């Protein structure tokens, strides 16, 4: 009798154990088997960062001799579903003070972004081509595309591995552009699993040689949203760096729609 009872207990335990293995195994399988690089890209793209934000940016360009050039910019952005509008106004240096840049970013790759530039020396707003995203922004090591939001499906994403960066567990994924004319052959990104934020990226040129390294740091919670306060882009081929530092970061300020109008940058100043 006792022997029969023990056998029942063992049998039940084995069944429970098998069930646990099955359940846990399925979860693990879902994480590493069904979970894809595209899933990581979607998590990053859809990471909540508020309906709008305003930030002061200090952009420091450092050449190979250590010489620095500093720009001071105020930037504002507002989300309209998957689209967004952003405005940027230069406070320094003196030769570009008052320069305003307005962009309407459309998520649909079939729709070109609308961009306008106000140059104080010309006192005129100029419509500029929306497709020159591969150009470098104001002499920095960031392209317009680096600073903007690429559509997730503009690239083919591959989950490579998991890695720990500064004590944080990260997904490591590769993105390869579907557009053969894109300036990068691939971009490797390390994404923190806990907050879905990139912390490092490597950009490879069309010859698959490392071109640039990007590091996000000083990541802090601001107004309930994880926000990096420093971005350092190093162009390893040209030995040039750009450091972007964010200060006075605010989310969900309730920025008005009328801020994102051509007439705003045409005023030559932003309040």
């Amino acid at each position, binding site marked *: 009798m006792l022997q029969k009872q023990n056998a029942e207990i063992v049998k039940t335990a084995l069944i429970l154990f098998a069930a646990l293995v099955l359940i846990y195994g399925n979860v693990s399988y879902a994480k590493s088997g069904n979970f894809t690089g595209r899933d990581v890209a979607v998590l990053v793209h859809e990471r909540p960062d508020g309906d709008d934000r305003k930030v002061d940016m200090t952009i420091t*360009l450092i*050449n190979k001799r250590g010489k620095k*050039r*500093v*720009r001071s910019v105020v930037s504002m952005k507002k989300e309209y579903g998957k689209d967004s509008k952003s405005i940027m106004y230069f406070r320094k*240096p*003196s*030769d*570009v*003070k008052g320069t305003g840049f307005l962009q309407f970013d459309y998520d649909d790759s079939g*729709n*070109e972004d*609308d*961009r*306008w530039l106000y140059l104080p*020396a*010309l*006192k*005129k707003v*100029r*419509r*500029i*081509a*929306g*497709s*020159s995203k*591969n*150009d*470098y922004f*104001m*002499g*920095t090591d960031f392209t317009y595309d680096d600073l903007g939001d690429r559509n997730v499906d503009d690239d083919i994403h591959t989950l490579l591995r998991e890695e720990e960066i500064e004590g944080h567990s990260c997904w490591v994924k590769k993105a390869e552009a579907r557009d053969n004319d894109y300036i990068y052959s691939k971009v490797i990104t390390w994404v923190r699993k806990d907050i879905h934020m990139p912390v490092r990226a490597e950009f490879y040129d069309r010859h698959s040689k490392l071109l640039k390294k990007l590091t996000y740091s000083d990541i802090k919670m601001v107004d309930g949203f994880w926000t990096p306060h420093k971005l350092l882009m190093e162009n390893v081929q040209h030995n*040039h760096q750009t450091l972007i530092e964010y200060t006075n970061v605010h989310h969900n300020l309730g920025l*008005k*729609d*009328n801020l994102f*109008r*051509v*007439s705003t940058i045409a*005023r030559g*100043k932003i*309040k």
Partner: protein
Amino acid sequence: MILRNITLYTVVFTALFFTTISSGFEYELNGFVDTFQSIKQNEPNDFLSSRTKVHLESWVTGEIDELSAFASVYAAYNGVYYDETELDIWEVFVDYSAENWDLRLGKQTIIWGKADGIAITDIVSPKDYTEFLIRDFDDIRIPVTALKWKYISDNFDIEIIYLPLIEKSILPPDDCPWSVKAETSKFINIEYENEELPRSTFENGEIAVKYNRYGRGIDYSISIFRTWDDLPVFHREVSFSGSMININVTPRFHRLTVAGGDIAWAKREFVVRGEATFCSGKHFEPENPLSEKIYENNSLNMLAGVDYTPGNNWMFTAQLADMYILNYEDEIMNDEHSKTGTLSISKKLLHETLEPSLMCYFGLNDGDGFMRFSVDYAVTDDFHMIAGIDIFYGDEGRMGMYDDNDGIFLKVKYSF
């Protein structure tokens, strides 16, 4: 200091004063110092231009968020034209910016149009042609005294501008390398009467209305401007005394009504631009110097242009413009079609610290032209040096007449 329009400036300065005396007013002084020197390539290598300018400007804001004021002054020394050595106010105005409208009162630069270096609809601010093409087009606009009200919506705005004071464009004086030299004869005696601007009355004021629309990939505007021609027409009275021919020339300004529009359409790496005006009331002089007849004909001014930015900081711009005189008569001095082309190529290098560029004007009627090749180097962000060569070519035409004025130039500019 030369002060015009005392009443207007009193109002503006009073507004500035009350803006500034309120507690917590803020201002930031900015400006630049620049010098431009151009020497003729041909002997005796005279100076074609020698000017140094200090420009100071400041926005002033006070307790009232919507209210701000702007003032800029300049001091300039011109080593070639002593008449141009002066100290004066450049712009001074008060702004009121409400949520959906702006009001600007005072002396201000008003720029219309989408063209580069050619004025089709950009005729609100007159121009200083003292140094013809060797001065940057964006430096030659003369601020005007105006009340400008703008209604602003999300994707359009409407401007209404009233200009009570008539300003004219400035032509090169007689004693300078850029003067237009009339043919003379020992049998012709020409006397010029003084130029008189129309009296500044309410009825003589200028008024402009413009509608601007900003859409997906396309911007356009339409406008109408009741104005005065900013250059006089030279009316002649011819008389004979013996073998001498006497020509008495009276410069007169004429009313114009200009209806126009412009468009900019962006597609991939291209921005296609167009601009056109229909001008009513334009007067033209006869080609025969002894003819007293002045012709009044409507005219069409048109321009088509394209910007191409293929990437890697390259920029290509090409434009074709035509001024077409309607109901043309062969006796008119101007051609029925006056066609001009422009071409501009530039590239930014070394993280945008170095920018070589080529800019060309082509006179398609006379086969003449102007080319400027320059290199702009940013020693620091605030300190730029620009050096280059200006070349005029052609045997006749507006640019060919300056064939002897090829020059080498250097410009140094410090901004603060």
